[in-house]
């Protein structure tokens, strides 16, 4: 809502976190955001609320309170068994109108990035996508939202002073969850879903979740990516073995995806996914700018290439010069299977 003499800034209070629910389970990014929200709310002397839209999720509120929420709003309805952007956006807007939060955070996941822009338009407020840093102005509650643009070549700080609430999607794995404290107490508020005739305009007719094909690059802390030097689909088996030893996910360059060696969901880069893991290990990826923009914000970059002079080898924190077909099997051998 646009602030004006009739709609005062002070009428909006508290920091909300929209829970990420996948296959009926609240995802870790939610706890990370609660941790971030806690810090912001403490500056403002306000509360942290989580909003859980899901089906059969009512039992999962305890964990949210333990890790920092003062209140949890639950809308438990079969309509939310699958990801239903329209009903979820409408419901969030109703809740925003009723309770008037100052800020609303949501994971920058495929669902969050589809849902929150819809909310921003319907609730007439500003939205900053993909934040990696959040601070708050203690006096007026303005969020200072920092996000990478141009694939990480520029960091921009964004403020929405004239609208409330302020919406932000936040990258997974950037914020820190607090340790769960089971003694913490909080309120659980149940709200019903208000059905709407427009709900018939979209139906989710099939859902395919798979742990095997799960890519989840956005959420992974260790990514092992392969490029053209893997020579074929078999090369990716090496990466998968290594990934399973270190609890990581497998990524790929466009060259490997275009060759049909691995599905597109694994592609990192300008026309794939942007990732920000703790470790990014690029195996036989030369590091063209379109690839770099998707991964250069990762904490630790390891490059493995037989050519010591590639752009990837130049930007890497650790550059290993050698043949991946010799080094990867050795690495797998040296890491004990868990």
């Amino acid at each position, binding site marked *: 809502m646009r602030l004006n003499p009739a709609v005062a800034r002070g009428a909006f209070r508290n920091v909300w976190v929209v829970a990420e629910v996948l296959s009926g389970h609240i995802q870790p990014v939610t706890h990370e955001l609660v941790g971030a929200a806690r810090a912001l709310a403490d500056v403002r002397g306000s509360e942290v609320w989580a909003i859980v839209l899901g089906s059969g999720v009512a039992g999962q509120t305890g964990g949210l309170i333990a890790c920092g929420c003062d209140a949890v709003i639950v809308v438990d309805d079969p309509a939310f068994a699958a990801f239903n*952007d329209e009903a979820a956006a409408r419901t969030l807007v109703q809740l925003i109108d009723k309770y008037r939060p100052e800020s609303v955070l949501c994971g920058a996941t495929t669902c969050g990035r589809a849902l929150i822009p819809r909310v*921003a338009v319907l609730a007439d407020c500003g939205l900053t996508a993909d934040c990696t840093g959040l601070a708050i102005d203690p006096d007026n509650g303005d969020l200072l939202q920092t996000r990478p643009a141009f694939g990480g070549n*520029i960091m921009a*700080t964004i403020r929405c002073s004239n609208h409330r609430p302020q919406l932000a999607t936040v990258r997974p794995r950037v914020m820190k969850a607090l340790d769960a404290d089971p003694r913490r107490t909080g309120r659980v508020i149940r709200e019903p879903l208000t059905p709407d005739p427009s709900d018939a305009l979209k139906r989710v007719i099939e859902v*395919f979740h798979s742990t095997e094909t799960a890519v989840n690059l956005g959420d992974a802390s260790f990514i092992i990516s392969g490029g053209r030097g893997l020579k074929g689909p078999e090369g990716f088996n090496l990466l998968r073995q290594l990934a399973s030893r270190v609890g990581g996910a497998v990524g790929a360059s466009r060259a490997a995806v275009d060759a049909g060696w691995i599905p597109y969901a694994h592609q990192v880069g300008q026309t794939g996914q942007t990732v920000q893991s703790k470790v990014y290990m690029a195996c036989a990826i030369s590091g063209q*700018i379109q690839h770099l923009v998707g991964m250069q914000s990762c904490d630790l970059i390891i490059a493995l290439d037989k050519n010591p002079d590639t752009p990837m080898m130049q930007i890497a924190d650790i550059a290993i010069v050698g043949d991946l077909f010799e080094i990867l099997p050795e690495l797998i051998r040296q890491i004990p299977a868990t």
Partner: protein
Amino acid sequence: MRIVVCIKQVPATNDASIDPETKRIVREGVKAILNPFDTYAVEEGVLLRERFGGEVVVLSMGPPKAEAVLREAVSQGADRAILLSHRAFGGSDTWATSYALACAIRKLGGADLVICGKQAVDGDTAQVGPGIAAHLGWPQATHVMQVRSATPETLVAVRMHEDGYDVCELTLPAVITVVKDINSPRVPTLRGRLASQKMEIPVWTPEMIGADTAKIGLDGSPTRVVKTEPPPPRNKASRRITGSPDVCAAELLHELRTRSLV
């Protein structure tokens, strides 16, 4: 079927720079390209028109030189192009951009389907597609990796998710945003290129699309860029490991263990 494809001209990534005064992306004198995801959006529109007839209208909001990407889309098979261009649009954030595009779609007499790219590679926000859907009150499907089937009234879209995919049926009109996996864009023919160079591209102003000027441009944008800076410098203490495979592996493992990463 009338299909509107929204496309954006973006600076070629590595040339990104920011005006220190206005905090806005410098678009003058920078090599500009069609947003890579939007090529797939145009191709999907053309594929659907080939099946159902009708027209593909490409729509872009931007400075006059953005007509270059509209011509490119026409050479790729779009039937006509419209450019939203006026000073008053300048400085629009995703809220205001999606509002202006939605106004233009209404002015066109609506559409059966609006197709956007997943995101523009300059701002990387992925907000304009769902924003248009919200302004028009239409259903949406984002990250669409396949159009499984379609009729003039419905479309069945496969959406990509972190942990798999889902399939949803949308009643048209609707908005979809597409990822690269959805198709392989055709290479424009020479004839297409020539025709696109001659095509008249109407330029629409806020007044022509009935846009409320309080909702466009810098003033209509809830968000303000207040600071831009280079990303924190990477730790330059990079390490190079060479030697036999077992030594390389052992040294890497050592590095990872000291950082408690394995």
